[in-house]
């Protein structure tokens, strides 16, 4: 327990100490929120979709969590290259403990980042429909954070250096975001796109957040929660397996 705690604490300390990283990773969600939110707002309104900022904000919060989480997981590559991973691998602790501690730490960091984005959306004019649902929104946000940190860890276990990082960002993480329904409603899409969204765990995360924050869902809260929980559990298992196989 103490081992997991200290691994978690390390991630939190590193996060809080790197102000440029905190601010830097707010840039993208902020840009999306302002340019898309205000840019497409009038059209969205005319097309009968209502207030676009209301619709977009949960998607942007998910985005903030997604990118921070993947990056936190992938950070293991730095630890591999800068040697710190060895320090944990020669210690009398199990690989699973290392993986769990790191993933919890990374997910907490991503969740904090999501909270900051949430506050920014409030400034931009977003108003959650009901405050009672905020704990549910937090739970969904935590699941998104866990899923994608575990995803990052799994990827980092397969890669030896940051060269593959761009590949993963452009061919996996970006499509995951753009095809999740974070930016547009999933209803009435071409069937192929709809199918892709159905296979995308983030789609359930965004949908769950939207349900909790503005009470509008494409799937339903129970489906979102079940699918997110199951896929997170599955990915944690895969991540642990891959992490256990790291050799240096």
């Amino acid at each position: 327990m103490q081992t997991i705690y200290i691994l978690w604490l390390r991630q939190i300390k590193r996060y809080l100490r790197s102000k440029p990283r905190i601010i830097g990773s707010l840039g993208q969600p902020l840009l999306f929120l302002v340019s898309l939110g205000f840019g497409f707002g009038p059209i969205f309104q005319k097309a009968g979709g209502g207030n676009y900022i209301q619709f977009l904000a949960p998607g942007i919060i998910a985005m903030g969590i997604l990118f921070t989480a993947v990056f936190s997981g992938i950070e293991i590559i730095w630890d591999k290259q800068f040697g710190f991973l060895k320090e944990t691998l020669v210690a009398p602790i199990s690989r699973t403990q290392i993986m769990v501690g790191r993933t919890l730490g990374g997910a907490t960091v991503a969740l904090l980042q999501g909270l900051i984005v949430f506050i920014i959306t409030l400034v931009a004019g977003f108003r959650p429909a009901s405050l009672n649902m905020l704990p549910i929104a937090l739970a969904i946000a935590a699941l998104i954070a866990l899923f994608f940190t575990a995803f990052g860890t799994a990827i980092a276990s397969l890669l030896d250096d940051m060269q593959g990082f761009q590949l993963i960002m452009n061919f996996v993480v970006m499509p995951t975001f753009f095809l999740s329904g974070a930016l547009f409603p999933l209803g009435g899409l071409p069937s192929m796109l709809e199918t892709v969204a159905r296979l995308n765990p983030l789609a359930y995360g965004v949908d769950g957040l939207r349900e909790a924050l503005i009470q509008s869902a494409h799937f339903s809260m129970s489906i979102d929660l079940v699918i997110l929980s199951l896929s997170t559990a599955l990915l944690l298992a895969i991540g642990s397996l891959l992490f256990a196989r790291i050799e240096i």
Partner: protein
Amino acid sequence: MNKIIETNSLTKTFDKTTAVNDISFSVDEGEIVAFLGPNGAGKTTTIKMLTTLLPPTDGSIRINGFDAINDKDAVRRSFGIVFQDPSLDDELTAFENLEFHGVIYGVPKIDRRRRIDEMLRFVELYDRKDELVKHFSGGMKRRLEIARGLIHHPKVLFLDEPTSGLDPQTRNHIWDHIRKLNKEEGMTVFFTTHYMEEAEQAASRVFIIDKGTIVAEGTTASLLQTTGKDSLEAAFLSLTGKMIREEEAGSKEHMRMHRSVWKR
């Protein structure tokens, strides 16, 4: 004498290359031994196997009486290690790095805090314990790594090229610490180095490894006698040849790295 490190027919093969080929040796408690060899000779692979980072292809290892393959955690508690490359967390303070180590090794809090203080004083970094490691010089980082490796009261200290890249002043300083540790705490020290004079001065026994096998072992005096040379460096060169290994090992390493960008 109690044998603190014992290997038997230790072998490691990667794909088709044999990095370590059937080596057997033992180290007594309280000894300082040097493991010398040209680049690519198998030194680091051997250390990785001794420290449970790499499973051997064949053979056995016992550290402090524990089996390094089946009883990993007992072995891990028995040794401290300073890796060839720095392995501190730069974003944490000196104290936090040691605290992290103490916690993951399960050292109880009271003993941990006392030991951290003691070790920080030992390597003369106590005054800077709350500074971030990224502001430390190379020599200070090395000293901190030595302190860290000792937090959990290990029986053996492994040092993989502990002084590479350091200036002579810092090197001397670090060796003073290591010798003091050996004298005062009876710590067994197993180190690799490319500086022959370090082995000559500090080691009670020397192993010379080349192409994955131990080609000579003994005290410096006995190695000088068998080779008929007047310095360990000359003896080393006569045993391992003058051919430069770096090129070959370097390109192989390079290829391995490229291939393993996608390992599976």
